[in-house]
């Protein structure tokens, strides 16, 4: 039994509360780091995280790439889509294939 969490600023994630997933609101860099380390230590299966927060947590997220749970998934925040999520897919392809073959 795993839980689902969403991490980001209030405006980006407030709607998710209605769906019954946990929301972790954080603004400053310290808050984000603190909340994230709390989430990965508890029993969370999926952590959705806004792209803005993910930029701060780059190292922490790449450290989790090899484990099965939690899955850290980037979503666009209220400030718009930075394309970071798509970039990550490209990175995985480059790692596996050796060059970027997706258009």
């Amino acid at each position: 039994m795993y839980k689902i969490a969403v991490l980001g600023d209030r405006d980006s994630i407030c709607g998710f509360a209605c769906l019954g997933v946990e929301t972790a609101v954080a603004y400053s860099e310290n808050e984000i780091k603190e909340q994230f380390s709390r989430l990965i230590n508890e029993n969370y299966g999926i952590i959705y995280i806004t792209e803005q927060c993910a930029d701060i947590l780059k190292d922490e997220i790449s450290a989790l790439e090899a484990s099965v749970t939690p899955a850290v998934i980037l979503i666009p925040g209220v400030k718009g889509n930075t394309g970071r999520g798509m970039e990550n897919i490209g990175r995985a392809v480059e790692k596996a294939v050796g060059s970027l073959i997706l258009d």
Partner: protein
Amino acid sequence: MAVMNVNPTRMELTNLKRRLVTARRGHKLLKDKRDELMRQFLELVRENKRLREKVEKAITEANRHFSMATASMSEESLAVSLMMPSQRMSIEVNEKNIMSVKTPVFVPEYKLADKGEIYSYGLAFTSGDLDEGVRSLSEIMPDMLRLAEVEKTCQLLSTEIEKTRRRVNALEYVMIPDYEDTIRFITMKLDENERSNTTRLMKIKDMMLQSSQGI
């Protein structure tokens, strides 16, 4: 040409030949594994891309509704509306095995049987945009779960593919040529010994014949 540091003996030769056979078999197996992983990976990564495009679009749309809602409602009433969610969602994580890579499969579980039970507030004092936002988020949620599953699987597969490719290359370009070179070296050395032995025997035979004639 890299000859390993071994004694050129017959025993070593048999050993090396046996190891070469194993290395070749391992190479073939790993190559098959790499190809199959790659096939699965490419399929998944396309799905990943498609899902991500869809999810990002839907979330952007939902965010737009929420911005409208925050604009037309006071912050307090919005916070109160979203404070007590009636639905609660969790997931069961099952493991799926893709070429001995463990990947997650997420199965959602809802506290309330009715999945539509998402509006935790009265409709009278809230903006319609809030309803719209919540509805579009709840519609995209199954896709978001699938996205999480696929994206995680892609990450795990790409790591495994990189590792396997490295092993295949090490076997193909280092181990197997080294074994072949060393085997050739030992064979040559043994043949050379054989020839020098023969010439020595011939020489001794000549010497013996000469000395017997001399008597």
